[in-house]
């Protein structure tokens, strides 16, 4: 069965549900919660259609839809959506995590419930839009619009320093994206002022119909890179992340770690590499250094955190550094590992934040020192936490292993030093995670407040079960995931290889078919 305009449905259905919630002010908070849960679950089911009908033999865009959005004398902006092997699983990750995020705030959010749900749902639309948009302006619009609901999620439902964190979040992420906007406009006019369409611009660039000078390419690359590096976040642009994570409500942290950070690495794969491969190759050593610093620095800082959420936040810095390192290894293992690792990090870190949120709901503290021996009173919770911890540190048989091994193989192939340092980071990751686990769950119950902690209930089990199942699935049988990514990633790899090929410049300057240079 084929569904027409399926990507539009997946993208806009959450916003539609949000609209219904806004327009029914009389409905109770409970009804709104059910509506949001059912709506976002429907989006998830709809998005499974994408996985099932995805043709893994094709590298280009699938499920494409394109129509004119704005046309004036000077501009043509299209509403162009499409996904390939890179974005497919990120869309699924988003639709998968959002119902869980709604479910996890079922009881913990009591103030302004409806506005909260509206924020989560519009956020979902924004995130899916970012992964599907193929027109640069459309992409930028989703990219920016998504900030507003996240800003409110942190600022209204967050912790004590929520306002500081919210403002920091929005200012940091906007610095990069505004410069990216200028770069997008520049690219548009460099391309003859005819289209913002990513597919067409990439085609012109790779066929040589559009030539950028190396100086232009460098600056455009930097403008895009800054936007994505802040979002990832790469060292040294990471300082907004711990604040935002610590202050955000649980669902906010889950979405932030699970999906928002992926937008940065997705942007690198989708825009920086295919559009500006030359500059990307030139910058790769520097970016890899920053990525390695991020891996080790994040791990070391995570080790000394007294607060569970902060620990997980810094572990994100470390893990996302690994993803960046994999991308800039420019080989198949690295790219594939990075893409899988994006998915893994979304699952494992999302799950960690969910787990931390659960204990916070019970104890209203996140300080590691306040816990100890929790395994005695809440064995199921402790077991779930163990599985997620092991997934996060990359135990074979769970999802984390697949991504980490691929990335390490990829980066070894391109540079032994970076590969070994990254491996060191992985060891440190095991250290801080297991040490944290030991301090929280093992040992004696010393703090009397912990004696009354109830184990997780049915709702919480329902949240964790699907995540754990997917973790096992990827860990044991990653074939269906890898095969769907492979062809699309090989296109990225080819694009990079074409730059390393010395004959490229000559061919681009002397195209076989001169008609190609004429603007359409």
């Amino acid at each position, binding site marked *: 069965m084929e569904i027409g305009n399926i990507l539009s449905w997946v993208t806009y259905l959450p916003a539609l549900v949000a609209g219904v919630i806004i327009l029914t002010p009389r409905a109770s908070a409970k009804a709104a919660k059910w509506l949001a849960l059912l709506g976002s679950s429907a989006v998830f089911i709809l998005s499974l259609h994408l996985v099932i009908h995805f043709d893994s033999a094709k590298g280009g865009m699938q499920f494409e839809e394109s129509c004119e959005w*704005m*046309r*004036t*004398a*000077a*501009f043509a902006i299209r509403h162009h959506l499409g996904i390939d092997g890179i974005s497919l699983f990120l869309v699924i990750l988003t639709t998968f995590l959002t119902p869980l995020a709604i479910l996890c705030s079922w009881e913990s959010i009591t103030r302004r419930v409806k506005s909260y749900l509206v924020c989560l749902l519009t956020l979902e639309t924004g995130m899916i839009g970012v992964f599907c948009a193929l027109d640069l*302006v459309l992409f*930028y*619009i989703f990219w*920016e*619009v998504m*900030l*507003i609901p996240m*800003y*409110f999620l942190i*600022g*209204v439902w967050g912790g004590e320093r*929520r*306002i500081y964190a*919210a*403002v920091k979040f*929005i*200012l940091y992420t*906007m*610095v990069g994206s*505004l*410069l990216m*906007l*200028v770069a997008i*406009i*520049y690219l*548009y*006019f460099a391309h003859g*002022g005819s289209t913002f369409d990513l597919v067409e611009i990439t085609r012109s660039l790779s066929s040589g119909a559009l030539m950028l000078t190396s100086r232009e390419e460098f600056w455009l690359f930097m403008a895009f890179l800054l936007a994505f590096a802040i979002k990832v976040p790469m060292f040294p642009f990471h300082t907004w992340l711990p604040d935002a994570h610590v202050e955000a409500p649980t669902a906010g942290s889950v979405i932030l770690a699970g999906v928002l950070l992926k937008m940065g690495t997705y942007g690198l794969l989708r825009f920086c590499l295919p559009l500006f491969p030359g500059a990307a190759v030139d910058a790769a050593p520097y970016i890899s250094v920053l990525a390695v610093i991020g891996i080790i620095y994040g791990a070391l800082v995570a080790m000394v955190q007294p607060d569970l959420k902060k620990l997980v936040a810094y572990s994100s810095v470390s893990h996302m550094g690994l993803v960046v390192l994999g991308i800039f290894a420019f080989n198949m293992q690295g790219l594939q590992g990075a893409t899988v690792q994006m998915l893994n990090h979304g699952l494992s870190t999302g799950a960690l934040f969910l787990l931390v949120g659960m204990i916070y709901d019970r104890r209203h503290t996140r300080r590691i020192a306040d816990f100890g021996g929790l395994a005695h009173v809440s064995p199921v919770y402790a077991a779930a936490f163990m599985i997620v911890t092991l997934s996060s540190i990359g135990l074979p048989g769970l999802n984390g292993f697949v991504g980490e091994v691929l990335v390490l193989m990829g980066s070894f192939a391109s540079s032994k030093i970076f590969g070994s340092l990254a491996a060191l980071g992985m060891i440190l990751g095991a250290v801080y995670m297991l040490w944290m686990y030991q301090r929280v769950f093992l040992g004696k119950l010393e703090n009397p407040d912990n004696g009354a902690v109830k184990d997780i209930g049915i709702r919480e089990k329902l949240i964790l079960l699907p995540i754990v199942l997917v973790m096992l699935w990827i860990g044991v049988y990653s074939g269906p995931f890898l095969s769907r990514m492979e062809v699309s990633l090989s296109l990225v790899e080819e694009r990079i290889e074409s730059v390393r090929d010395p004959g490229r410049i000559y061919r681009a300057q002397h195209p076989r078919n001169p008609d190609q240079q004429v603007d359409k």
Partner: protein
Amino acid sequence: MGNDFILLIPQIVLVIAAMALMLLEPFTPAAHKSRMARIAVLAAAVAAFSLGSQWSDRPRTILDGMYAVDNFSVFFQWLFLVILAVSAIISMKFNEREGINRGEYYSLLLFASSGMCLMVSSSDLILTFIGIEILSIATYVLAGFKRADIRSNEASLKYFLLGSFATAFLLYGIALIYGSTGSTNYQTIRELASMQGGFQNTTLIGMGLLLVGFGFKIALVPFHSWAPDVYEGAPTPVTAFMTVGPKAAGFATLIRILVEAVPFLADEWSSVLWLLSILTMILGNVVAVLQTNVKRMLAYSAIAHAGYILVGIVTNSGPGYSAVLFYLVVYTIMNMIAFSVILSVSGSGDTRVYLKDYTGMARRSPFAAAALSLSLVSLAGIPLTGGFIGKFFLFSAAVRNGYIGLAVIGVLTSLVSVFYYFRLLVIMYMKDPDETAAAPEPMSWLVQAVIVMGVVGILWLGIFPDQILNLADFSILAPK
């Protein structure tokens, strides 16, 4: 001549309505003064309707080349008439509350608007000057309309003194241009210069003085110093009017002079305006961060927005000018919404205008808070609002014409603006209301309707801007 007369009907309607209000004022009982506002709105509607026939693709001049009839002037006159109507509507309740509900107020609004309409239609420096004076004198009085309020007095006096100073610059500039070219008519100035194959230094100096004069009127840095005090002290509906009306009129007139009278100086004025635009964007946004008075904050934001609009003029290109026209429409809507909410919060005496007075407002009046938030988000240039599309087109015109530095400064200063616009959002949504925070007074259905239309307008322009953009494309004066 009879034909010319028909084309002047919009002006005549405004002026007759203004004088009629003056005459009716003594005979209208105090309880029915709001009728005056309705008459003003009616006059605006009639004038807007009679302008419709002037929309054509055939620009021409009447009255011996003094008065231009083209889409550019029709576009702006429509905008001014909307501003007039909205200002009159939001003033009614405010004026009743403050005890200044008198017919002269609406009469002055009408006169100011007729001055603005004259400014954009004029293609002769003398007529332009008369338009500017009609507008200025009416706004001097409006700024001081709360006679018993010392801040309003201060605003009026300051505006009057500095405005007169600016007028002197303007007049001196006009005199020098006349002296060196022998004409005050835009077209003649242009043609004479092209016949002479160049320009004299006195023309350049005259143009410089003219820029100073306009810099005052549209509050460009470094000629902006009057704006925050005047905007703060003037009655809030008057502030709303002043931040959009005279500003748009100033820009429109400036564009007409630059394009029609002195295109041969394009290199010179565009480099001067380039500098002014950078200074204005930076200073307006940075100083706005420091404000705790919302009216004052929006005053600096108005200065900053003048800087953005100037970016479009600096490019001296078709897309740049149409972006300016589009942005002025969006800016008018955003500011009108913001001020409509502000004056409903400001309370008796117009004193609750500080950030702290908005604490937790989202809980007490969600509608007003949401409308204000949307206009602030749009002012900050976030996508899906008209403000984003406006900035997008302004900055892309800059990039298109090679002014990449200007675009970069523009986006970075917008980032600064996000900080202060969002601070108000923080206060309204993320803090709980305390006892000191005022509950905004209920708005009349008319004001609510205006706000709803504005909200729809902002979103409409943010999502489907084609129509207004195409309208703007049809309305620009092609660079000569």
